[in-house]
């Protein structure tokens, strides 16, 4: 007789009382709307936009719909776990829809409803906020979405990426997960968020991490090593570009960007030097995007005769 291994019935999700349920609900919602659900990029990066599923996939004519959580590192935002709103490590939920569907705003509002934001109880607003990333040679128009005066999402129609016009345009949604959860759960400190429905808090998971990483970012990182790492990433990026592997090159640009952020947190980059470092990161990121577009362009042009790179 076979022993049937029966898993216990899955509990219902409650996005209003569990951080992870909120994420899983967003996954359900966007999966049902045709998105590929990706896992986070396995590198340290400042924003979900750096994920190749956003940057590189925004290039070229092919449709692409994806959703994923991306952990973000902002070393200078660390507060040693003492500020209830600021973290050096937090999560963004990214949705990228290309081409941007005509009902993208409605889809977004439905996703908010799915995680428990009722637009007749809460004042939802689309407030002008254009986005520009000189580092990525990218810009777009859109809004920050307000919920009772709080910015909960960045909503952007990408117009350019890596210096190229986006053809077609992708719509990008970036939810600030901790903020949204704090709002939905009604807590005043991020560390008080319920991570799951079994008594684990956000603080249980991340407080010690914030304390240690804030100290590391502000006080400990060996700045000589960081400068070397920056140069190594820069050199490696060029090497990869020269050998026609722009995805690998792009990763080095992402690495250089994070190392630069760490140098900033250590306070060793002067105002004058800052612009020059940013220019170097930009050259790497754009060089990688350009190489990627250049390599893929013939294939894209063949599949989409109405499309052209420039």
């Amino acid at each position: 007789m076979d022993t049937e291994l029966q898993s216990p019935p899955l509990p219902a999700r409650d996005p209003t009382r569990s951080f992870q349920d909120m994420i899983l609900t967003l996954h359900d919602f966007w999966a049902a709307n045709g998105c590929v659900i990706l896992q986070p990029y396995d590198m340290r990066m400042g924003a979900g936009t750096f994920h190749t599923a956003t940057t590189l996939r925004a290039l070229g004519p092919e449709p692409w719909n994806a959703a994923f959580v991306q952990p973000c590192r902002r070393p200078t935002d660390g507060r040693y776990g003492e500020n209830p709103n600021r973290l050096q490590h937090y999560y963004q939920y990214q949705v990228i829809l290309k081409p941007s569907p005509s009902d993208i705003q409605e889809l977004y509002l439905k996703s908010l409803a799915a995680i428990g934001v009722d637009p007749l109880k809460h004042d939802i607003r689309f407030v002008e906020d254009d986005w520009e990333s000189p580092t990525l040679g990218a810009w777009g128009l859109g809004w920050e979405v307000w919920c009772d005066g709080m910015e909960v999402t960045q909503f952007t129609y990408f117009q350019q990426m890596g210096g190229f016009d986006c053809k077609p345009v992708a719509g990008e949604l970036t939810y600030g997960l901790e903020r949204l959860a704090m709002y939905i759960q009604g807590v005043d400190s991020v560390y008080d968020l319920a991570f799951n429905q079994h008594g684990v808090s956000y603080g249980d998971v991340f407080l010690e991490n914030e304390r240690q990483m804030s100290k590391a970012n502000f006080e400990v990182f060996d700045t000589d090593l960081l400068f070397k790492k920056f140069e190594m990433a820069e050199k490696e990026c060029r090497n990869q570009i020269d050998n026609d592997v722009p995805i690998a090159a792009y990763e080095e640009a992402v690495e250089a960007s994070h190392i630069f952020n760490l140098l900033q947190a250590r306070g060793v980059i002067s105002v004058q030097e800052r612009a020059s470092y940013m220019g170097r990161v930009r050259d790497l990121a754009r060089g990688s995007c350009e190489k990627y577009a250049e390599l893929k362009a013939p294939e894209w042009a063949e599949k989409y005769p109405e499309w052209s790179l420039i």
Partner: protein
Amino acid sequence: MADFLLELRCEEIPARMQKGARAELEKLFRREMDASGVKASDLTVWSTPRRLALIARGLPTATEAVREEAKGPPVAAPDQAIDGFCRKNGVERGALEVREVKGRETYFAVIEKPGQAALDLLAAAIPAIIRDFSWPKSMRWGDASISNESLKWVRPLSGIVALLDGEVVPCLTDGFASGRTTMGHRFHSSGEIVISGADDYADTLRDAYVIVDHEVRAGIIREGARKAAKAAGLTVVEDEGLVVENAGLTEWPVPLLGRFEDDFLDVPPETIQLTARVNQKYFVCEGPDGKLANAFICTANIAADDPAVVVDGNRKVLAARLADARFFWELDQKKTLAQHAKGLERITFHEKLGTVADKVDRVAKLVRWLCEEDIVKGDPDLAEQAARLCKADLVTEMVGEFPELQGLMGGYYAAKEGLPVEVSDAIRDHYKPVGQGDDVPTAPVTVAVSLADKLDTLVGFFQYDEKPTGSKDPFALRRAGLGILALVLSNNIRTTMRELITAAAHAGGSPDAGRDIAGFLIDRLKVQQREAGIRHDMIDAVLPVESDADTARVVARVKALQSFIETENGTNLLAGYKRASNILKKEKWEAPKNPSGKDPSGKDISYTPETAEKALIDALDAAAPKAASAVTEERFEDAMSALATLRAPIDAFFEDVTVNDDDADKREARLNLLARFTGAVSNVADFSKIEG
């Protein structure tokens, strides 16, 4: 007559662009109608975040047929010319008519433009309006954006309503077909709304929770905020810019008042007001004592099930912002301003002008000089202390977050530190005056720091050839120039610009910029005085005789001159002067260089002068020395009065006396007399520079 409604619906239009968009829609609609010779009796344009609407009333239902004729080349002209004429007018050669013009057979093209139905005309106009619409920033979107050629709009366009007397004006623009359905409020209405025509448009939308008239929404916000404040025993701090912005963010505005914790009132009120306004678009309120109250008014875009929930959410956001502000306020005070000022060594002021710390050092030295030379009556030590600290707040957290608070925060921190009130006031106000109409400092220490800061900026940039050109003035040098003039004039600073410019000169910069800077300041003076009704030509007339003067003296003389020129005596004297100098110019007569004296030839007149001639000689003998001494003693009105006594004699002279007499002696004497006259006048002002 027919009424036309056009609604262009799109995703949320930035609030700041809506006013311009209304004007653009009206302009383009008028352009299209003018091109067809059609006029609406009344035009209304409305906007909400999600739509632009235009209602044109009293349009003709059709245009009249028009017959136009164009004259072409003679029949004998080469084929090329005739074909060109046909192409230009869009007619076949066979359709040309031949008429006789001055005896020559000449071609004429007759073009019949049939009357057009308004419906057709509008159907063609709408796509043109959409295609030519200019937004400050526009974008592509959706499937069509695979091509560069796809339509651009401020945000994705989502629908077009076009109705003429209730009938759909059929048109298609980039895949959008016109119709009669629109959408109501994003959350209070669902499904499509059917519009029957221009007359019921606003009401139908109102039923769907959209107030389409932006003025009405602004009124609701303005009044609602006042009422909400009053109900709480407070007064709203009026802010029309915020009213308009909130009207641009809402289709169904509902002002709601909330409270924040009292503790936050410890931070400077300007900080609270700024973070509430800039970051959250909230109004703030004052209590009966005129002080900032712990209240804010947000404008929701829904009639919420429970407004308290919305207010509470907004309160939390504001509290987090205020907590940040308080954190900065407390953190900044952990260092003295002098300690903060050390950080200025790391900030570049301009690549050629060094760091902000370098600038502060120059300004401090200039301030000391201004006070020690008694040009400004401030205490040199206090003034230098203020100058050394005046930029320190640029490296504080608070000013990093709110750059608009520069100066103000430094003033607060200085006061908290217990520095002398002259010093904290000077730090607070040294950026003033920021524009025309702004308060001009009068406290001596503040005047010294403000003046030195602006002089250093203006002179330094000119020395490194970073002058404003055309519309480009990246370092706001025009504003600095106006500030310098306002400070000098308001505080009666009696030093020449040349001396101030020389004192402010940077050691490493070009030594030859002085003339340019002086010329630039003269231009600024003209701009500034124009506001006060002073003509630029009056300034030009005074400058040649006041080349070494301070600005206050120049302006006093200019004002006296203009008052005089505007009297009847002045106008006539000016006419007499012009006539005299024209005669002298024509005769190439050298003006005598001895305006107050007698006949410069040294000769007595060899003949008996005519009465009018004698009268002018006597008047000149009396007036010239009077005017000269009045000018020296800065009694400019008296100098003008002295000139006024010449008006009747010069008029009579021209009336009765022939200058170009046959007698060579008489001619010479009279020309010399005219030269004496123009010389005496020119001693008061260069009348040749005066227009009219």
